[in-house]
């Protein structure tokens, strides 16, 4: 599960390459153009390292925080089989965070530093997880459609240029395919069930549609900055392209179930492009900056977990431990 990383569009493209060795930069770009991967100890531009750390770290945080709204429903999942499946899914999400943190670590930021930046609110995570899962149906919609969005993003990023991130994403995408099928199965069960079940799933879908439309982020500004990140294969597709891909794959599946979406303007035009009401980006900004219904709770829960587990971690530590940046 994942939210699109937020890349600051105000960074000036000219600043990006300031002070870089032109010959090394040319070799680096040629390697990427040949389709070769960059590995941790390779020379890389400062901006490449910075943007990748930010992106992979946010992706890791999203996995950890994303486990919270779904984890809520483990104790109340309807039936033993659903409970087992949801526990497995939530464990996978936390496992994905471990893989992603490891990939970010190879770029030189320690896991402690990443956790500190998360719990102080300095680092962001996917905005969708600042909304609560009111009912079991919300958890089902998350598992199906948020994971579907995540897969579109992750499949694109798995073709990026940084070796450790690509390897982590390959492993993650394999596991996500179970999440997607599991989520779809849950939604289909509700949508083809009793009137009460249909009502539950329709209400959850209506609630989650605005955050889902926010999921891929605002339209990218076409800037030199974005162009360079795309040339370096840090960013693999524009936010709008990913949103179109998502709508194209999932709106028909939603309509197939006789469910409705709360956007009267949603339709596919003659050119095959999806038209929709522009999402409320002011709301998106308000929530990402701390104003959502669950921001405070998410971080308080995370801090609580770190604090209450601290004595265990300390008790297990040994005097001769020594940190070294992981190899790959």
């Amino acid at each position, binding site marked *: 599960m994942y939210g699109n990383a937020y890349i600051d569009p105000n960074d000036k493209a000219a600043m990006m390459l300031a002070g870089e060795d032109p010959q090394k930069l040319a070799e680096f770009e040629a390697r990427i153009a040949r389709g070769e991967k960059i*590995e941790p*100890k*390779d020379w890389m531009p400062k901006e490449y390292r910075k943007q990748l750390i930010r992106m992979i770290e946010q992706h890791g945080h999203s996995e950890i925080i994303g486990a*919270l709204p779904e*984890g*809520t429903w483990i*104790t109340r999942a309807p039936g033993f089989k659903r409970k087992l499946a949801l526990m497995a899914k939530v*464990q996978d999400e936390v*496992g994905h965070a*471990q*893989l992603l943190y*490891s990939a970010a*670590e190879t770029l030189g930021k*320690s*896991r*402690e530093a990443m*956790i*500190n930046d998360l*719990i*102080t609110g300095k680092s962001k995570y996917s905005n969708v997880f600042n909304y*609560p*899962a*009111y009912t079991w149906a919300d958890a089902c919609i998350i598992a199906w459609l948020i994971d579907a969005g995540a897969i579109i993003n992750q499949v694109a990023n798995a073709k990026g240029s940084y070796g450790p991130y690509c*390897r*982590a994403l390959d*492993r993650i995408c394999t*596991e996500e395919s179970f999440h997607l099928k599991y989520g779809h199965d849950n939604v289909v069960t509700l949508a083809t069930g009793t009137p009460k079940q249909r009502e539950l799933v329709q209400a959850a879908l209506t609630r989650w549609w605005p955050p889902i439309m926010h999921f891929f982020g605002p339209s990218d500004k076409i800037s030199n900055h974005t162009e360079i990140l795309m040339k370096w294969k840090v960013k693999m597709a524009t936010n709008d392209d990913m949103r179109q891909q998502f709508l194209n794959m999932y709106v028909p599946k939603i309509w197939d179930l006789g469910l409705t979406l709360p956007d009267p303007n949603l339709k596919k035009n003659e050119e095959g492009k999806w038209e929709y009401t522009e999402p409320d980006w002011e709301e998106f900004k308000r929530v990402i900056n701390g104003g959502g219904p669950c921001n*405070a*709770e998410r971080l*308080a*829960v995370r*801090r*609580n977990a*770190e*604090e209450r587990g*601290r004595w265990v*971690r*300390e008790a*297990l*530590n*040994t005097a001769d*431990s*020594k*940190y*070294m*940046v*992981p*190899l*790959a």
Partner: protein
Amino acid sequence: MIKSLDPRVNRAAIEEENSIEPLKDLDQWETYEVFHQKRRGDQHMHVGIVHAPNAEMALIFGKEQFGRRGLSVNIWVVKTRDVFTTDYEDSDIFETVPEKQYREAGGYKVMDKINKFKKGL
């Protein structure tokens, strides 16, 4: 206290302003490189890392992280700092003469010689 829709959060009785001391270095321990064997007879392959306080815990975390779908029959772990590596910057050490037929089976064509020899008999 945080008032949540999540009963687990309410039970944990979490203060709203629960700022904590930042994590110190090595709070998350050091890292171990993990290798797993998919089936008996296969070679062990590097699959990633885990953070762990000792080798026993690294094996437990390694199994949980990389073997939870039953895709492994055996796991090795080794401290990252105990692994010696070559440098990508020195990749030229792997460069060699372009013509290496002499160390390939296909570099040896004996049938031509045998046939020629037989004709001459």
